């Protein structure tokens, strides 16, 4: 029987050429959403089909791939995409941020600072930041053409009028290179400052919506705000319960039905790295000790 044979990194060459041309245009026009002929992938929409196509178009045999889902290397989505490329492209995979050359992410930017030899690929569900304000594509396209972004400021203002502060906590809109307003994908706004002036190239792929966009390295990325209500990244006011980190983004984990909870780093690689380096939090397990053999 013939074993099923796939092209390197799954996609056929014509598709890769089409995606590669879109990526080059996306880099040349920072923040602009380039339409592309998104393909069906062997996974459902919403599981990262856009990010997977971008990764498949750039990945080479020398790359080391890391995939995270909400900061974690160990969730179903991250593991299945990592295995997908290990199988179809034979690339080396890692969970260590600084060893990776290509990092595909669903909604987090690693805590460890990225460097110039890395590409960060975002999975994007809704690439159009204005879509919930204006459902018509023809209109949002015109608004981008005219750089008419008043509507977005009205939305943020309504947050202030209703809640007293800008309550948008994720997918917080940014302006790229002082021109295009862009959806940073549903990352927590805690991560927005990491997009600004990053040494790494950032690529965004939306499979269902068929858009690719990019932030080149060393590009100005500003979170929208008001003079009297400046942008503020949000973080639970607690150290990580496992590694004690005071400056990482935290997940809240409910531990019983009596209201107890713990806060742990969302970036598992960062947290494990810190624990291995000897940092401990309030709920760290005591180091495992061999029992002394009993003589008797």
């Amino acid at each position, binding site marked *: 029987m013939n074993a099923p044979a796939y*092209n*390197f*990194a799954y996609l056929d*060459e*014509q598709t*890769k*050429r*089409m995606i*590669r*041309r*879109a*990526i*080059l*245009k*996306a*880099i*040349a*026009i*920072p923040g*602009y959403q*380039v*339409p592309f002929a998104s393909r069906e992938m062997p996974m459902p929409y919403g599981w990262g089909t856009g990010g997977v196509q971008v990764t498949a*178009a*750039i*990945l*080479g*045999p020398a790359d080391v791939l890391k995939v995270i889902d909400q900061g974690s290397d160990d969730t179903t989505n991250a593991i299945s995409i990592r295995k997908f490329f290990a199988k179809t492209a034979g690339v080396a995979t890692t969970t260590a941020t600084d060893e990776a050359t290509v990092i595909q992410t669903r909604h987090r930017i690693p805590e460890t600072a990225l460097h110039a030899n890395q590409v960060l690929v975002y999975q994007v569900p809704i690439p159009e930041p204005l879509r919930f304000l204006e459902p018509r594509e023809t209109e949002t*396209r*015109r608004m*981008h*053409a*005219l750089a008419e972004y008043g509507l977005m400021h009205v939305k943020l203002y309504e947050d202030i009028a209703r809640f007293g502060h800008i309550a948008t906590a994720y997918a917080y809109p940014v302006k790229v*290179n002082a*021109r*295009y307003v862009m959806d940073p994908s549903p990352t927590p706004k805690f991560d927005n400052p990491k997009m600004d002036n990053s*040494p790494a*190239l950032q690529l965004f792929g939306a499979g269902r919506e068929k858009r690719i966009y*990019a*932030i*080149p*390295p*060393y*590009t*100005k990325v500003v979170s929208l705000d008001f003079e009297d209500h400046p942008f503020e990244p949000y973080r639970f006011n607690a150290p990580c319960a496992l590694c004690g980190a005071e400056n990482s983004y935290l997940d809240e984990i409910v531990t019983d039905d009596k209201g107890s909870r713990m806060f742990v780093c969302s970036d598992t690689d960062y947290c494990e790295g810190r624990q291995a380096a000897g940092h401990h939090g309030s709920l760290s397990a005591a180091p495992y000790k061999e029992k002394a053999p009993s003589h008797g």
Partner: protein
Amino acid sequence: MTTIAELPPGFADKVLSAQSTFRSVMDAMARPGSVQRIVPMAGTAGPMMRGTAAIALTLFDHDTPLWLDAGMSESADVLKWLKFHTGAPVVQDSSIAAFALIGDGAALPSLERFALGTNEYPDRSTTLIVQVDSLDAGRSFELRGPGINGVATLQASIKPLDLFERLRMNEALFPRGIDVVLVADDAVVAIPRTTRVVNKGS
């Protein structure tokens, strides 16, 4: 008369060579002014340089109308090679071209004659691939813009001599504009529409 069997070959390994070439071009586009090397080599036809041939094999296909300058389009070998290896249609009207191959920059037509994209679809523009004499010696140019950490310095011997003056129109046109890929043998430098030349010495 060259028959198909006598045509210079494409990539020995289509898949991995195209990937490696693309990463060089992507890095060049993401870091304007930086000189990237194209490693995999293919045969070249007529006045095409090695880098140009590799880029053609990597990015051109039936979806990308090509415009060729006089030196390229007069070479039957170039036309045959492109047709056989890429299948890209060669067009006479530069304003509908996805890519333009410029073998001799001295004869570069006015940039307004290429597709500049629209404000709604700025991506529908022509990418110029311009062959130049050198990307490591010659006049020095200081570049600024996205992808550049402060200032990048490019030393290059480029024709037309006023290429960067002509590209200044990108500033007023943005987000419309022209992206340029400079090729010298196996070296590649990209000048996307966001890059500004701030100073140049001799």
